[in-house]
C-alpha cells in the first residue's frame, strides 16, 4: 500500500485548454503515517493510447515540495504548468491522444505514490513541422540516407553486384507498370490539390487534366479523399501496422466512356473538409493521415494513380479561444468556420471558392434586424422581396438579409431562421444572406 494518497484538483476541470496554456491546480496529499518525501514532482504530459506503440512527451515539470509529511494532516500544493502545444487531444478508433497532469511523490523504501488527471487541449495551429516543412526535412534526411547507402554500397559492391540486375529488374517493372504503361494511353497527366494545408470546414480544389495519346476507353475517373489512422505496434519481427479508415469519399469525375485521342480532358472538383475533421498527426508510431487519390481506371490496363497528402489543421472553431467548448453543434461550428474563411479571403476568387463549396447548404442564424436597406447589395436574387439591415451578434458582423415576399414578415427586431449565404462583401465586411422557407 502506498504511504500517502495523492489527488490532483484542477482549478477548472471542465475547461478546454489551448495548446501551451497554463494549467493551474493543487496537489492534495494525505498520509496515514509520518512520511519523508524526497520530492513531490508534478508534470504536464501528453501520450497516445490505442493500438500503436506509445508516443509521449513531457511539457513541463516542477518539484513543488520536499520534506516531512505528518500523519493525519492534509497538505495542498498549488502548481502552474504549461500544457503541450501539440498534439491536441484526440479520440479516434485505434489512435487517441490524451493530456494529463501527473504527480509523483518520491519516497525512500516505499512504492512511490502517483496520480494522474486528464484535461482537454485544443489547438488552433499545426506546428511548423507540418507537411510542407516536414517534406523538406525528409528531403535532407533522404539525402543523408542516400549518401550513407552509397557508402555501404561501395563497401560491399563486390558482393552486391550480383543483386544489381535483380534490383534493377524489380524497380524497372514497377516503373513500367505503374508509370510507363498508363501514360502510353493517358499521355502526361497533371494532378493537383490546392491548398494542401487546410482547416476543417474549408474547401480544397482538386484538378486533373490529361490529353490521351490515342483513343482510349475508361471505366471511370475518380477522386478519393481519405482519412486514415495508422499505428505501429511492436518492433522487429513483432512489428505490426494497424490501420483504420475514419473517412472516405470517392467522387466519380467521369463515368465509363471512350475518350478521343488528342482531346484534352479536364476535371475540377471541390471538396469541403468536414468541420469535425481530425487534424493531421504525425507522431513517431502513430499517424492520422489525410490524402487525395486520383485515379484513371482503364479496363484491362494498369490504372494511372496519384496520391497527394493533405495537412488538415486543427479546427479553428474548437480551438480559437480556449473557453470555447469543444462540443460545438456541428452545424454552428460549420457556420463559424465558413465565416472565418470568408473573412480571411484575400481575393474575390477565394470568396467564390468558399461560396461554391457551400452553395447547397443552409445555416441557422439569429439576426438582429433594423429596417429596410437604403441600397440593396449588388446581387440579383431572382425573386421579389425586401433587403433588411441585419447584425449577427455572435460574430460582430453586419448582414444584408433578403426576405422573399412570400416569407413571413419580420415581427420583431430579432429574426431567427434558416439562411443561404449568397455573398460576402469583403470591403464593407457585410454578409449577404437570403432567408429560406
Amino acid at each position, binding site marked *: 500500500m502506498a504511504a500517502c494518497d495523492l489527488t490532483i484538483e484542477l482549478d477548472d476541470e471542465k475547461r478546454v485548454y489551448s495548446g501551451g496554456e497554463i494549467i493551474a491546480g493543487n496537489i492534495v496529499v494525505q498520509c496515514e503515517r509520518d512520511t519523508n518525501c524526497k520530492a513531490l514532482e508534478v508534470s504536464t504530459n501528453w501520450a497516445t493510447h*490505442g*493500438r500503436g506503440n506509445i508516443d509521449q512527451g513531457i511539457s513541463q515539470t516542477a518539484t513543488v515540495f520536499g520534506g516531512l509529511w505528518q500523519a493525519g494532516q492534509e497538505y495542498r500544493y498549488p502548481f502552474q504548468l504549461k500544457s503541450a502545444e501539440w498534439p491536441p487531444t*484526440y479520440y479516434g478508433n485505434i489512435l487517441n491522444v490524451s493530456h494529463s497532469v501527473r504527480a509523483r511523490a518520491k519516497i525512500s523504501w516505499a512504492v512511490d505514490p502517483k496520480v494522474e488527471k486528464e484535461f482537454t487541449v485544443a489547438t488552433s495551429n499545426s506546428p511548423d513541422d507540418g507537411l510542407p516543412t516536414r517534406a523538406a526535412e525528409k528531403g535532407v534526411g533522404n539525402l543523408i540516407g542516400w549518401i550513407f547507402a552509397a557508402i555501404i554500397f561501395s563497401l560491399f559492391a563486390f558482393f552486391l553486384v550480383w543483386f544489381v540486375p535483380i534490383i534493377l529488374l524489380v524497380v524497372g517493372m514497377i516503373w513500367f507498370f505503374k508509370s510507363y504503361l498508363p501514360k502510353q494511353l493517358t499521355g502526361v497527366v497533371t494532378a493537383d490539390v490546392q491548398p494542401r494545408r487546410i482547416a476543417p470546414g474549408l474547401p480544397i480544389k482538386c484538378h486533373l487534366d490529361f490529353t490521351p495519346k490515342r483513343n482510349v476507353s475508361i471505366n471511370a475517373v475518380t477522386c478519393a479523399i481519405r*482519412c486514415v489512422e495508422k499505428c505501429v505496434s511492436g518492433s*522487429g519481427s513483432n512489428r505490426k501496422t494497424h490501420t483504420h479508415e*475514419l473517412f472516405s469519399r470517392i467522387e466519380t469525375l467521369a463515368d465509363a466512356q471512350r475518350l478521343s485521342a488528342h482531346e484534352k480532358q479536364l476535371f475540377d472538383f471541390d471538396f469541403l473538409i468536414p468541420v469535425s475533421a481530425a487534424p493531421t498527426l504525425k507522431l513517431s508510431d502513430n499517424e*492520422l493521415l489525410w490524402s487525395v487519390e486520383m485515379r484513371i481506371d482503364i479496363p484491362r490496363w494498369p490504372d494511372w494513380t496519384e496520391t497527394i497528402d493533405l495537412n488538415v489543421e486543427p479546427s479553428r472553431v474548437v480551438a480559437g479561444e480556449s473557453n470555447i467548448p469543444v462540443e460545438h453543434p456541428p452545424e454552428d461550428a460549420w457556420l463559424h468556420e465558413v465565416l472565418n474563411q470568408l473573412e480571411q479571403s484575400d481575393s474575390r476568387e477565394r470568396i467564390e471558392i468558399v461560396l461554391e463549396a457551400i452553395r447547397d447548404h443552409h445555416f441557422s442564424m439569429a439576426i438582429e434586424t433594423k429596417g429596410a436597406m437604403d441600397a440593396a447589395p449588388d446581387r440579383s436574387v431572382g425573386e421579389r422581396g425586401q433587403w433588411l439591415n441585419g447584425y449577427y451578434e455572435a460574430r460582430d458582423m453586419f448582414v444584408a438579409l433578403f426576405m422573399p415576399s412570400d416569407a413571413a414578415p419580420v415581427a420583431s427586431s430579432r429574426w431567427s431562421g434558416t439562411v443561404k449565404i449568397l455573398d460576402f462583401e469583403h470591403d464593407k465586411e457585410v454578409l449577404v444572406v437570403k432567408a429560406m422557407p
Partner: protein
Amino acid sequence: MQVGHAKSPFQAWNLRRNPFGELTFGERAELAVVEELAHWLEILRRPRTALQFVGDCGHGKTTHLLALHRSLGNSVYVYYPETGPRPKLPTVRPLLIDEAQRMGHWNRWRLMRGKGPIVVATHIDLARQLRKFGFETVSVDMNAPMHAETLSRILNRRIEASRWMNRDPSFEVDILLAEGLLAKFHSNVRAIEGFLYESLQATLTGRASWPPVI
C-alpha cells in the same frame, strides 16, 4: 459527420483509455500477472541457473521478462533487435535477454560461458545448449494452455489500471468470457487483446454490445 473528436468516449465506461491497447514497457511490467514469480525469484538466487521462456509471439514472454526485471532490482534487461546494431552483453547478473534466438553463435557462446543467473525469452528451445554449458535450466512453455482464471486476472488488471474515477470499472472479463476467448485464441494473449480492443471500440460507438460475441 464526425471524423474523430476531442471528448473522451471512455469516461462513460469509467475508463481513461481502451484497456486492451498497447502499454509502455513500465506499465507491462507493473500489470503483469506472473503466478510463479516468487518461485522463479528463488531459483534465480542460485549462481549458475537459467530460466527460459519459450513460445510464439504474443504469449507473454516479454511481459514475464519485464516483470522479473522489475522484481530483481539490480538486473539488466537486453532486447535483441531483428536488425541494426547488436547490443553488447553486459557482465551484470542476473541478465535478462529478450528475443534470444536472434543472438549470433558468438554472442550465445559468450553468454553461456559467463556467469549466471540468466533469463532468456526465445522462440526456439535453448535448454540443451544451456545445460551443455552447465546451467541448471528451468524451461517454461509459454504456448501451454492457460487457465481461464489467469486470463481473467490478466485482463481485469488492465481494466483496473485504465480506470478513470475512483470507483469500480463498468465491466469485467468474467470466467465465461475468458473460457470463450481461450477456446478461440488459445493462450495468445496479444490476439485476445486485439480482439477485445476492437470489441470495446465497437461497443463504445454503439455498433455492438458487451460482452462480445466470440
